[in-house]
C-alpha cells in the first residue's frame, strides 16, 4: 500500500514523454514542472517548463554564441513562471563559461551573467527577484580552501551575499550517486522568504534569511532503515 493509494484526491495529466525512463528528473515548484537536459551538443531545446494544468509545455534552447557543448545544471521558477537556469557553456577551445540565465514566462532568455571562477550548480529564486545559488569556487578549490559556497546575486549579476555551509570545512566528499557513490545530490530551494540548502555529503541543512544571515544549521538524522545513507531528493515548495 502506498501513500498515494490511500490519500490521492486528484490527478493532473502530463504530456506524454515529458517524464519517464531516460529523462532528467523533474523539479516542481510554484505550480510549474521544470525539466532540463544535462548535456547538449547543438542548439536544441534543453529546457522544458510546464505550468501544471497547461496542455503543452514551453521549450527553450539555452545556447550561448560560440558554444559547442552546453550543460544545464539546475533550473528554478518563480510564481510568475519566469525562471533562472545555471549552466556551463564550453567553446571549441574548451574554455568554460559558467552562466546564470534568466528566462521570461515564454522561455526566452532575457539576461545572463558569467560567474567564473565560481560555478553555480544549484539555483533557487524567490518572489523578491534575487538569485541564490549553491556551487563551487574553483579558484578556492585549487588552493584547497573552502569552496562549497552559497551565493546570492542580483538579477544583473552583482554578488550580494556569500555564505559557507559548515560542510565546507575539512570534509572529504563522497561521490554522488551518478558518479558511482551513494551520496545524493545537494539541493537548494526557497523556504518561504528564506533560502535553504541540503548538503547531501554531510547530511547538513543550512537556512539563510533574506538578509544573508545563517539562521539554521542542523545535521539531518536520516531513518536508520533507509535504502541508502543519503537522500536522493529533498523537496521544498
Amino acid at each position, binding site marked *: 500500500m*502506498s*501513500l*498515494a*493509494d490511500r*490519500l*490521492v*484526491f*486528484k*490527478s*493532473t*495529466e*502530463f*504530456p*506524454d514523454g*515529458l*517524464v*519517464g*525512463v531516460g529523462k532528467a528528473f*523533474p*523539479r*516542481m*515548484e510554484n*505550480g510549474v*514542472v521544470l525539466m532540463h537536459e544535462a548535456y547538449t551538443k547543438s542548439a536544441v531545446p534543453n529546457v522544458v517548463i510546464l505550468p*501544471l494544468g497547461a496542455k503543452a509545455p514551453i521549450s527553450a534552447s539555452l545556447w550561448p554564441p560560440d558554444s559547442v557543448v552546453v550543460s544545464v545544471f539546475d533550473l528554478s521558477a518563480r510564481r510568475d513562471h519566469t525562471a533562472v537556469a545555471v549552466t556551463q557553456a564550453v567553446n571549441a577551445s574548451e574554455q568554460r563559461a559558467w552562466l546564470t540565465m534568466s528566462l521570461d514566462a515564454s522561455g526566452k532568455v532575457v539576461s545572463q551573467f558569467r560567474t567564473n571562477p565560481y560555478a553555480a550548480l544549484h539555483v533557487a529564486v524567490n518572489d523578491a527577484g534575487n538569485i541564490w545559488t549553491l556551487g563551487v569556487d574553483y579558484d578556492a578549490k585549487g588552493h584547497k580552501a573552502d569552496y562549497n559556497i552559497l551565493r546570492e546575486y542580483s538579477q544583473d549579476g552583482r554578488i550580494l551575499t556569500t555564505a559557507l555551509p559548515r560542510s565546507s570545512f575539512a570534509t572529504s566528499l563522497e561521490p554522488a*550517486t551518478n558518479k558511482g557513490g*551513494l551520496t*545524493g545530490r545537494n539541493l537548494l*530551494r526557497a*523556504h*518561504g522568504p528564506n533560502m*535553504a540548502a*541540503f548538503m547531501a555529503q554531510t547530511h547538513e*541543512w543550512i*537556512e539563510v534569511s533574506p538578509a544573508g544571515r545563517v539562521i*539554521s544549521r*542542523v*545535521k*539531518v*538524522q*536520516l*531513518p536508520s*532503515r*533507509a*535504502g*541508502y545513507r*543519503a*537522500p*536522493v*531528493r*529533498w*523537496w*521544498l*515548495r
Partner: protein
Amino acid sequence: MTDDGGVFLQLAGFSLCKLDTASGACGTVDAPEEILLGASGNDLLLYNSLAPTQVDWVHQQ
C-alpha cells in the same frame, strides 16, 4: 516544502521522512511506491514512473 512549513525528504528506496529543522530528526512518514515531485500548498505531488503521464495530489496530514 509545504506551506505549513513541513520539509520532506525522499530517500533512495522511496522512504519518505519529515524533517524537524530545529533538531535534524527526520522521522519516517511512509514508504510510498511513488516518487515525490514537490508540494503545492499543503499537498504533496507524487508520480509513478510506470504511469508518467500524470501526477497525483496527496493530502498531507
